[in-house]
């Protein structure tokens, strides 16, 4: 390939990239501005006259009637739920993907087809049955039920991605380990797992995101305000007649930040982890 394009083409390319950047950044700036605007004031263009962190302060310092620091607890709940979901999700997706990638067992084809099919389930019909099932399992009012549901939601896509990646790990390595005296489980934990790290990172990201952003089920299942997750809590700012956009925006930024940070931390893996399977 030529090492350099002509100046004109380079300029054109930079121009397009610049325009796309503006389009990408604009809505984000809009949220930032709303969060930084002290009262609800009418403003049409993005320009923050007086920067103010009041909205952030209000959101962060939310307390309940007994003076317990709600924001802190809810942040902790979110982290715990998302964290456990991630661990569950990785475990479930990794073992499942490993089976589908490494064994040719009766039922494998059905399993693969089912994974794609589950992506087509319309969420509308699922919420109430999930409620009933968790009720029967006595998991309704606990974080565990929620965690299980979240990890299940994320599994099909994660397996699909992980399987693609594991397919690219040479089978020889595992056979070598088999002869070296490793059990199936040892091969899984000591060979496949370390080698699938980029894809695992991406799986972790998606599981985390699923749990971190969800609020409909969380608002239905959890029975204590100190057990709520952050997305449920920030619903208070966009309810019915009163919408506190400034607070909502501030809360939205606070909620998005960890995910955005994770995305950026893992973006290198993202490129490889997502596609390895399908291109080799």
């Amino acid at each position, binding site marked *: 390939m030529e090492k350099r394009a002509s100046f004109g083409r380079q300029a054109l390319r930079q121009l397009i990239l610049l325009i796309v950047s503006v389009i990408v950044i604009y809505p984000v700036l809009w949220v930032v501005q709303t969060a930084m605007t002290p009262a609800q004031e009418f403003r049409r263009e993005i320009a923050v006259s007086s920067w103010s962190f009041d909205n952030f302060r209000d959101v962060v310092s939310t307390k309940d009637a007994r003076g317990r620091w709600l924001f802190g607890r809810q942040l902790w709940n979110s982290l715990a739920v998302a964290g456990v979901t991630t661990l569950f999700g990785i475990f479930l997706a990794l073992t499942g993907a490993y089976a589908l990638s490494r064994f040719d067992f009766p039922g494998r084809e059905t399993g693969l087809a089912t994974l794609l099919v589950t992506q087509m389930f319309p969420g509308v019909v699922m919420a109430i049955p999930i409620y009933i099932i968790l009720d029967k399992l006595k998991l309704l009012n606990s974080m565990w039920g929620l965690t299980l549901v979240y990890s299940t939601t994320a599994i099909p896509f994660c397996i699909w991605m992980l399987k693609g990646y594991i397919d690219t790990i*040479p089978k*020889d*390595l595992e*056979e*070598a*380990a*088999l*002869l*070296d*005296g*490793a*059990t199936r489980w*040892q091969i899984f934990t000591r*060979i496949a797992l*370390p*080698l699938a790290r980029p894809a695992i990172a991406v799986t972790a990201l998606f599981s985390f995101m699923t749990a971190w952003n969800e609020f409909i089920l969380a608002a239905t299942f959890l029975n204590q305000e100190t057990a709520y997750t952050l997305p449920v809590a920030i619903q208070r700012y966009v309810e019915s007649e009163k919408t506190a956009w400034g607070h909502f925006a501030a809360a939205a930024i606070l909620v998005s930040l960890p995910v955005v940070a994770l995305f950026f931390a893992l973006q290198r893996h993202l490129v490889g982890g997502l596609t390895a399977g399908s291109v080799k």
Partner: protein
Amino acid sequence: MASVTLRGVGKDFGATTILPSIDLEIADGTFLVLVGPSGCGKSTVLRIVAGLEAATRGDVAIDGESVTDKKPRDRDVAMVFQSYALYPHMTVRENLAFALRLRKDPQAAIDARVAEVGEMLGLGALLERFPRQLSGGQRQRVAMGRAIVRRPRVFLFDEPLSTLDAALRGKLRVELKRLHQQLKSTMIYVTHDQIEAMTLADQIVVLNGGVIQQHGTPDELYRRPANRFVAGFIGSPPMNFLDVEIAKDGDGSAMRAPGLELRLPERWPEGPAVLGLRPNDLVPSDDAAAPLSGEVDVVEPIGWEAHLHGRIGETPVCAQLTADVARRYEPASTIRFDIAPRALHLFDRDSGARLSAEAQDA
């Protein structure tokens, strides 16, 4: 150290039969090479012995004890893969120690053994490196080291040299041979390269289409190939084949073909046959009565020897001569060859089986 026995081992994939039935006896300490063209089933045999693949039928025994239903790790065999299969996320040291660690050897013993093997293979300076930081030859040595560390009963090699360049391959061949002499273990080695087979093996098994063509020492295979396939596969440059007609001629037989007229003292089966002649058995002769005559095409000098390509009748043949002798022949000139009676290999035209003279000297 152990003997390996295969009895009636076969393998099917779905409806396709890869291996009909293999019987093989490998004595303790033998270096056995399984050789054959790609797709002949040689790797499958190896993997069945390793336990990586289950045989559809038959029985594998190591040291007289059946291992057919045993898991690979319970067979105490080690394998060197074509791709080396070094664990990319472990250092050389960790790669070597992996098996020992899995069987929970004491750390001191592991260290000592890794150091010993590293020394043996000249890997001492590389122990802390990762596989991706090694050259092809070094990786190959690590792969062998990983097998040696464990002191397995049987070593298995699956085309371990095929990805290396020719010079390195030659060097490592010698190392392997020395290793075998040192360890005196049973080794089964799979390759498609007959030179590797000839240089390394105590015993060679030639496999084609899942069937053993011949099993013997390199010398036996070279001198008395059991069929046309083995004859053509073993030896370099490969054996020349001429279609001939054998007729009765007094007490003996007469062999005729365009450019060939030869009387044989023994009685051979009459009818069409294939004559096999190794290139180095073709001796140029100025005698007008020499049995073979052909036309010179090209002379390829290779240092002290030369390959002379020509045609006998319409059949291309190759003769291996010293460069001095070859120089005497111009392209398009006529050349005559003499052949020693011992150098004749005759095969059935249809089945390819080796023909022998009818017994009269017995």
